[in-house]
């Protein structure tokens, strides 16, 4: 079965939902491992900001969203796009710059967007999508649509100017936004404590009198619970929440990163809290699924990723005659 994506999630934590999340975490992981393989083989040069280690954040948040809710994403956006319901084939083809890509090869990894699934786009500019998230939420509010916006960004973005402007605007107008801060401890090489005076980035919310929460970003169930709770508040007119997810990227910032700014010991400790393990262990303990099911999902997902890779690799290059198409809407 193809990964059924964030479609009308059951409102309670059912075994089905737990399985969906496990499947999604594995999908993102294996998708990114395929990207790594492509990078190492020289198939792609860009698109190397991988989401490995952080899968529970996108998965838990998107599992709490409706189909027609919006997300905005970042330079590390493959996981967000998948979790919001993107087709692995079209996303992978996009990262390979193919004509069949979700953005027809124009956006690539840094600008993965998928309007059909409510993904308003990854962004090459750190902080670049925070204003867009505020605007999408303003639009939802003005249209009375009941939609909310999950705005993903890293710890690095909290020090950009537009972060402050967007947080402030969203709070003043009580817009339905979840500000999902993926604090993976580093913005490229600069650790959070060298870039801010804060220990918990959620404290940034205090300056705007915005609601805040801190969540274990390795635990998809914790993320889900927070996103649901604060998502429903947003949906019912209660305004935005800043949700800080403590997480870790297992690999380097991008392919060229020698990771001199952190220790192998720190990496080892975080790897013990792999979101796959955390999710699988809880599901098995609760009796939602068993080890055999986990293995079965793993092989199903592996097949889907292989199929996506085959599709992406065999897809045609975009036609240079179309180089300037779609600069303007007619």
């Amino acid at each position, binding site marked *: 079965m193809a990964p059924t994506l964030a479609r009308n999630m059951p409102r309670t934590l059912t075994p089905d939902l737990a399985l969906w999340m496990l499947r999604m975490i594995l999908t993102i992981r294996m998708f990114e491992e395929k990207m790594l393989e492509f990078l190492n083989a020289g198939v792609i040069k860009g698109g190397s900001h991988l989401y490995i280690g952080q899968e529970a954040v996108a998965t838990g948040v998107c599992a709490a969203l409706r189909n027609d809710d919006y997300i905005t994403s970042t330079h590390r956006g493959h996981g967000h796009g998948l979790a919001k319901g993107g087709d692995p084939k079209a996303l992978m083809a996009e990262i390979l710059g193919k004509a069949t890509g979700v953005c027809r090869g124009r956006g690539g990894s840094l600008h993965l967007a998928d309007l059909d699934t409510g993904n308003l786009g990854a962004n090459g500019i750190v902080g670049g999508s925070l204003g867009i998230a505020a*605007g999408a939420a303003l639009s939802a509010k003005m249209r009375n649509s009941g939609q909310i*916006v999950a705005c993903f960004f890293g710890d690095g973005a909290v020090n950009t100017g537009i972060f402050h402007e967007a947080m402030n605007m969203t709070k003043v107008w009580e817009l339905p936004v979840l500000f999902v801060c993926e604090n993976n401890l580093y913005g490229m090489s600069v650790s959070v404590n060298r870039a801010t005076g804060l220990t918990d980035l959620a404290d940034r919310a205090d300056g705007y009198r915005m609601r805040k929460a801190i969540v274990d970003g390795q635990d998809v169930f914790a993320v889900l619970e927070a996103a649901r709770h604060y998502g429903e508040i947003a949906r019912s007119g209660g305004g935005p929440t800043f949700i800080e997810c403590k997480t870790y990227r297992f690999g380097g910032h991008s392919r060229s990163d020698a990771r001199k700014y952190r220790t192998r010991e720190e990496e080892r400790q975080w790897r013990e809290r792999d979101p796959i393990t955390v999710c699988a262990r809880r599901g098995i303990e609760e009796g939602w699924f068993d080890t055999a099911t986990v293995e079965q999902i793993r092989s199903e997902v592996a097949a889907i990723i292989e199929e996506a890779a085959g599709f992406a690799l065999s897809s045609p290059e975009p036609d240079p005659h179309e180089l300037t198409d779609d600069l303007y809407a007619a």
Partner: protein
Amino acid sequence: MGSSRELTIQDALNEALRMEMRRDERVFCMGEDIAIYGGAYGVTKGLLQEFGEERVRDTAISEAAIIGAGIGAAMTGMRPVVELMYVDFAGIAMDQIYNQAAKIRYMFGGKAKVPLVIRTQGGTGKQIAAQHSNSLEAWFLHTPGLKTVMPSTPYDAKGLLISAIRDDNPVMFIEHKAIYNEKGPCPEGDYTVPIGKAAIRRPGKDATIVSYSRMALRSMAAADTLAGEGISCEVIDLRTVSPWDTHVVIESVARTHRAVIVEEGTRTGGVGAEISARIMELAFDELDAPVERVAGVDTVIPASATLEAAAIPNVESIVAAVRRTLL
């Protein structure tokens, strides 16, 4: 009344906003001091009273978020008109303008649209100096994915603003702070002026003057002066700086064989540089004289009224340039 009615540019813009907001509930305005205050230059006055604070939104001083939010709203079904109080403030919102608004449709494979109008004003004339007097349209001309509109008459101001609001692309709508009170004919009803189409303000046969915004008015005055000397100038008001009307310009130059381009922005890398290069590419054989550029001096706009006036083209400098092409 009817067709003989006259309005100021300010009132014509205000009417366009009202008409579009009445016609289409997706249209809304936001920006600094646009609601209670009515806009720094009064263009949005009275909108709050008619449409309420949901659709006429005062914002904090957050230019990047104002434009960013305009983009997000535009991508999700609204048709925002955001006001950037001074075009000079584009600097702090430039990422949202050129990296986000202008590129989103293309980057996303043509699947998104950004029907956003960024209303702003620029130019000199109020002695507010270096950070409040610039003409930055060349930046936007240099940005694929944007349209840039700069009206010089009440008729065009209304018709172009209506077009901009109905356009599915991000449009920089740059008013000129010194001509808001210029009066001219402006019909009451619904009409549009197409983006990308120049107007021949005055037909002529000896030389073509290409201009836009406030400098189009000065170009008309220069043409009057020259007419007194028996020199017949064709004056083209581009109205849209991007995409500018190559066809009308080239066709005119092919008749007059002389071209003078007049702009308030600084000369180097300016709009005139681009137009002049295009004329060279497309109509070199038609030219009987080098293309003349009359432009802002390559300097920072100074505060002193005397210096400010010296920094931009005036009627005499336009007249002199036309004469040079006829030597």
